[in-house]
């Protein structure tokens, strides 16, 4: 599995696709951060102008700025995960056959490629730790304000949650990539499934409240929201692990089915 992981990372990092994905990610994260930072500064100015200390105290960079940025950044992963999975499983049929021949099992091939996707997503999520670091180093307090007080623990939990969410997205996208022979079809199906999954809670008006509660639990949104606030509980961890393992299993089964 390690051999495949290294191969996939080497191919992805040195490919044009990898370069474009990395550049787009950096640009989008920077843009989202600047937009939210500007909005936060304006809100802080207004609160200070009103002279209400209670209102100023509510302006927490961790909840109002960093969580907000990461909440928007996760939407990028809805696009990135299918592209990543497409790239990971874009081997020509002969190469795919040869991998299944030379590897000890389809599990090795599936998990090796998935592991590469997870490493990439974890790297992308980890890069967002630069945002609280930038705030901590360069943030200046407005006149009368306390300045940014970055909660390191919350930042780490939030980034970890972003990585876990991205890993689940990649795992689900890999299922489609392992099942469909045509990479473009796999990417489209994966994207549609991920968007529908993400939007499950918004179906609350279409289904009863009981069903809506289950759908909200099944969707990544609520788990992500808690994680970004740094209050991830045991149920959320079980959800992330369970979703990832299920999708990884389905990916392996999809690949094994290829021995038709």
């Amino acid at each position, binding site marked *: 599995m390690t051999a495949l992981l290294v191969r996939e990372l*080497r191919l992805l990092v040195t490919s044009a696709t990898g370069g474009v994905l990395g550049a787009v990610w950096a640009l989008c994260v920077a843009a989202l951060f600047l937009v939210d930072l500007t909005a936060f500064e304006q809100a802080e100015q207004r609160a200070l102008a009103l002279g209400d200390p209670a209102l100023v105290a509510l302006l927490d960079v961790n909840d109002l700025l960093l969580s907000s940025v990461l909440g928007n950044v996760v939407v990028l992963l809805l696009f990135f995960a299918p592209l990543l999975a497409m790239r990971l499983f874009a081997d020509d049929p*002969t190469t795919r056959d040869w*991998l*299944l*021949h030379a590897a*000890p099992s389809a599990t090795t091939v599936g998990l090796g490629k998935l592991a590469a996707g997870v490493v990439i997503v974890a790297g992308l999520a980890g890069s967002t730790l630069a945002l609280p670091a930038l705030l901590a180093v360069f943030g200046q307090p407005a006149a009368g304000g306390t300045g940014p007080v970055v909660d390191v623990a919350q930042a780490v939990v939030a980034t970890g949650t972003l990585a876990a969410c991205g890993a689940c997205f990649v795992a689900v996208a890999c299922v489609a990539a392992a099942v469909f022979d045509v990479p473009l079809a796999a990417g489209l199906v994966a994207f549609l499934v991920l968007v529908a999954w993400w939007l499950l809670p918004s179906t609350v008006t279409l289904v009863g409240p009981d069903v809506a509660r289950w759908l909200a639990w099944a969707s990544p949104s609520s788990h992500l929201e808690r994680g970004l606030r740094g209050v991830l509980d045991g149920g959320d961890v079980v959800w992330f692990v369970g979703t990832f393992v299920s999708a990884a299993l389905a990916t392996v089964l999809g690949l094994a089915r290829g021995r038709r």
Partner: protein
Amino acid sequence: MTAALAPVAAARGLRHAWAGSSALVDVDVEVCAGRITGFLGRNGAGKSTTLRILAGVVVPDGGTVVVGGWSAHDPRARAQIGWAPEEPAVADGLTVREQLTFAARLRGLSRREVTAQLGSLLSSLDLTSVEARLCGALSRGTRRRVGLAMALLGQPRVLLLDEPTAGLDPAQVAALRALLLQKRQEGVAILLSSHVVAELEGLIDDVVVLARGRTVCAVDRAALSRAVAAVAADGAPNAPGGLA
């Protein structure tokens, strides 16, 4: 055809269909240690499909495949097989050395074994001068040799070579023949598919001829020569030499 020798790999009564049309109807093929078996047939006769089944990447609809006493899909069986598909399974973004190292590691070779085998393989297949080049920048013939090196890693007991001489120049074909003869000396069982009879001349010990998904002939070389001579003397139009 080789009654005195126990086959290392054998497929019997293979049946397989692709998208509703029968690719294999009834294929029997076996390879024995220290022998080179020519696997002949026109394009589309089912040679590549049979090799893919023997390599354990396709499950046949019917029939049995045994390699070293295990079913072809058993990892222990696949570990004994070196398979070089017609189109080499190389990644354009890896160098030759990286590609071979990856292939060796995937097959479970230790770092020490990789180092030991890579040097001799690169040298014997004349790949030393291109080991640092990206596979995507190689000529077709060189890519074929990389694919062959991948099949030889791990010192397999059975070699499955799909049209191995395609894209090679005469000198490379001669080097390949020498390498295969050396592997035969070492006791490796080799199944070599081709649709050109002439290129197997002086190389093979046994012949299996496939036509429209069926084994139509499985004999040793001497018997084949006698059959060809008899057919030629009889003036029949479909002599085995006309497969190409």
